[in-house]
């Protein structure tokens, strides 16, 4: 179990790769009830909107960096805040790497701030993010 005392600023959080299949993307858009065609209609996404392929949802990628935090803390801490920004598009078939690092520790509140990222194979950050967690 992760302990506040064992965390140091600069620690890297475990990374995880995600490669969404068309079935996973369908399930995600069905789960959130998102009928935006660029996420499931290849002809529409490429011919009408000029994208190279079906577009991965921004909030799905946001969720992937959220999991870096929730997998890291398990039940050892509580998520206080979480944010992400859509910086560039990612497409079906791309393998995206989610990770993060410890930025700050506050001994009086026992809160830890982390920075988060989702990168494509070229190393470009598509979704940066941040989170704060609190230990009891």
């Amino acid at each position, binding site marked *: 179990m992760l302990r506040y005392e064992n965390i140091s600023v600069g620690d890297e959080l475990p990374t995880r790769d*995600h490669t969404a299949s068309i079935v996973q993307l369908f399930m995600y858009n069905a*789960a*959130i009830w*998102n009928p*935006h065609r660029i996420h499931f209609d290849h002809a529409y996404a490429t011919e009408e909107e000029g994208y190279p392929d079906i577009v991965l949802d921004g*909030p799905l990628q*946001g*969720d992937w960096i959220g999991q870096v935090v929730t997998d890291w803390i398990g039940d050892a801490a509580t998520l206080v*805040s979480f944010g992400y920004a*859509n910086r560039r598009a990612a497409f079906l078939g791309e393998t995206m790497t989610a990770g993060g690092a410890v930025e700050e520790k506050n001994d009086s509140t026992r809160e830890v701030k982390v920075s988060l990222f989702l990168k494509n194979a070229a190393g470009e950050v598509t979704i940066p993010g941040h989170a704060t967690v609190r230990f009891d």
Partner: protein
Amino acid sequence: MPELLTPEIKARIGDANPTLHVEVTRRDIQKYAVSTGQTAKKYLDGDEAPPLFHFGYSLEVLPPEKLRKDGIAEDKLIPPLPLKRVMAGSSDTVYHRPIRAGDKLAITRRLKDIYEKAGKSGPLIFVVTEVVIETEGGEPVLNETTSLIAR
């Protein structure tokens, strides 16, 4: 810098959508959990919702003929903007407690601010919305602030 935002647009700041009332089911959480590739048992079992589960509640349930050609529902909260190119936005959430199976939630989305700034390659309009989720009993669950930029 010329004012792009008319008094009519600015008058919309503070507007809110009608509060949405939802019951969170275990199955809803499970669908979200498997589709996002969660590994934690509490999420896969549907006991507790992952942090971005609530995003789906911002999408309206409408029949196909009420959607635009691209499949998106018109966002009635945000007035038509003089700049049409909408760039991807950001989301920041403060959590008071997790969403759990069986929760009865009241969800309110409000237009918090619209303002303009001079960007490097021309004017930018920032649109800020806030989603407040509480239980029907009034217990705070989360506050999400989202912003998007038009240029």
